[in-house]
């Protein structure tokens, strides 16, 4: 387990580039970004295993390409771009589509280290019910996100879940600011229609 370090991304990358085998520097980058990337992948794909696979793949790609990183953009923008592309590739992969078709029944609504318990103890019934409702709501929102076209989906996730700025999203997706703005507006509008039951 690598502890969080305050060393800037650039310094870690330089250390990695100086010595390809500098695992601590790379591990520090993993530690810093793994949850953000994992969450992005999960919201994009809606499946824990697929998200795990894509997030791991993202870091493998980073490891292999970090030597050639020229600091023309921030590392954060770069890794997000890799992650978004990896997720898009995953979406079109035959393996993914096949798995989605066959595993939707046994995939928990909101899986993490705390799976939804099948039985709720009496004393926890109230909080459990609230938790269940929350998870249900999350599942509905997640399902709505998954209905969005890939580009709108990635922009909504980057903006509303990852909290990135329009400029950062523009750099990650390659769209200009105006396009990011309009695609985001369209995505939010579509989500509003799908989430009427929750927001009203």
């Amino acid at each position: 387990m690598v502890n969080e370090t305050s060393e800037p991304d650039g310094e870690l990358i330089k250390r990695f580039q100086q010595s390809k085998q500098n695992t601590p520097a790379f591990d520090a980058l993993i530690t810093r970004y793994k949850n953000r990337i994992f969450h992005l992948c999960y919201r994009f794909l809606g499946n824990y295993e697929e998200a795990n696979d894509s997030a791991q793949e993202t870091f493998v790609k980073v490891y292999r390409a970090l030597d050639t990183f020229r600091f023309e953009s921030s590392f954060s923008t770069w890794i997000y771009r890799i992650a978004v592309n990896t997720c898009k590739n995953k979406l079109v992969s035959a393996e993914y589509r096949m798995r989605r078709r066959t595993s939707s029944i046994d995939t928990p609504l909101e899986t993490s280290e705390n799976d939804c318990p099948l039985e709720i103890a009496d004393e926890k019934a109230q909080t459990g019910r609230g938790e269940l409702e929350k998870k249900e709501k999350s599942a509905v929102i997640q399902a709505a996100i998954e209905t969005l076209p890939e580009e709108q989906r990635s922009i909504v996730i980057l903006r509303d879940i990852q909290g990135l700025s329009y400029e950062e999203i523009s750099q990650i997706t390659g769209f200009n600011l105006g396009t990011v703005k309009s695609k985001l507006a369209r995505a939010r509008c579509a989500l509003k229609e799908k989430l009427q039951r929750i927001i009203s």
Partner: protein
Amino acid sequence: MKCAEIKELLSAYIDAMLEPAEKQAVETHCATCPECRKELAELTSVVSHIASLKPIDAPVDFTQKVHERIERRSEFERIMKKIFTPRMKLPLEVAGMLTSVVLVITVYRFMHPMEKAYYSPMTEQVLEVTAPIPISKNTLRNTGDSTQGFKNVRQRILSEQKPLNISRFSQEGVKKDTLSFKEEAYVGEKEKTQGKGVSRGMRDEYKGMNAAATVYGDSVGGIAPQDSAGNLAFSRAPEQHRWVTEGNGAMSKAADIQLVKYKTQLYVILLPVKSEIIQTNVIPLIHVIAHKTTAQITNTTTDSRGITTFFLNVPTNTIQEFMQKIKFIAPKIPLPAPSLTQSESISIQIVINPL
């Protein structure tokens, strides 16, 4: 601003990404428009709901799994490298050159599928082995019946004219037979109105000549249709000339080529005995002629009788060269008068099994 325009701006308004004037317009409009106010509230709610989604963290063994994956990938690449890296190092320039050569040959062969045929024994012999045997028209007309005519002509030819290069591709043992065969074929073709006996005889002889291939060239003064208005040079030609070519080859056994020149057109007629043989040779032959003369082939057609006609466009200034290249045609045929045209259109007919 109208509601539709305001609604376009609401998303950016939530993110505080509007210009001050736009922001002011949205606020002013929403203060008086309940519908847009509702829209803004719902959009804000959507954004906050999405933002409130519980973060999903990576599993605890995530870093370890990433390293395992990197290791696996590296191992795989190491194995692939070991398999595909040659023991002996080839200089990059040599490897590049070899690849280029292979590529060029492959592309060339792909683009010129007939090229192979150009260099087959059959096609070479058609063009290269030639020998003119001029025969007077009177000689032919003297033939009483086909067999007698054949004998007369044969004797006449043997005594008067000997083929020059006739055995270049033939083995010595075949030479004599081939020669007599050619004479028979000639008579058989010319005197075919007298019956098919000779023709059958010719076929029989062909069967006995597995190794020999014979092509007859015939420049035609007498054969040229007299009613052809455009028959210039050859209608005045007093002699009918016949050439015989031969060579080895299992595919081509015999053919009779007749050539007629009308103004700017030549007709070459191949009269093979066995259609199944010449069928395989027609296309290569066309390409050989075109290839050797650098002429352009156009309009290749085969009619229901099996007569293949094609046109060669030969530049006027190279027509002499063309004649020389087609050796069985060239020696005795007067060239057309100098023409103002840029090129001559030469029509060539290949007639299959006309007997």
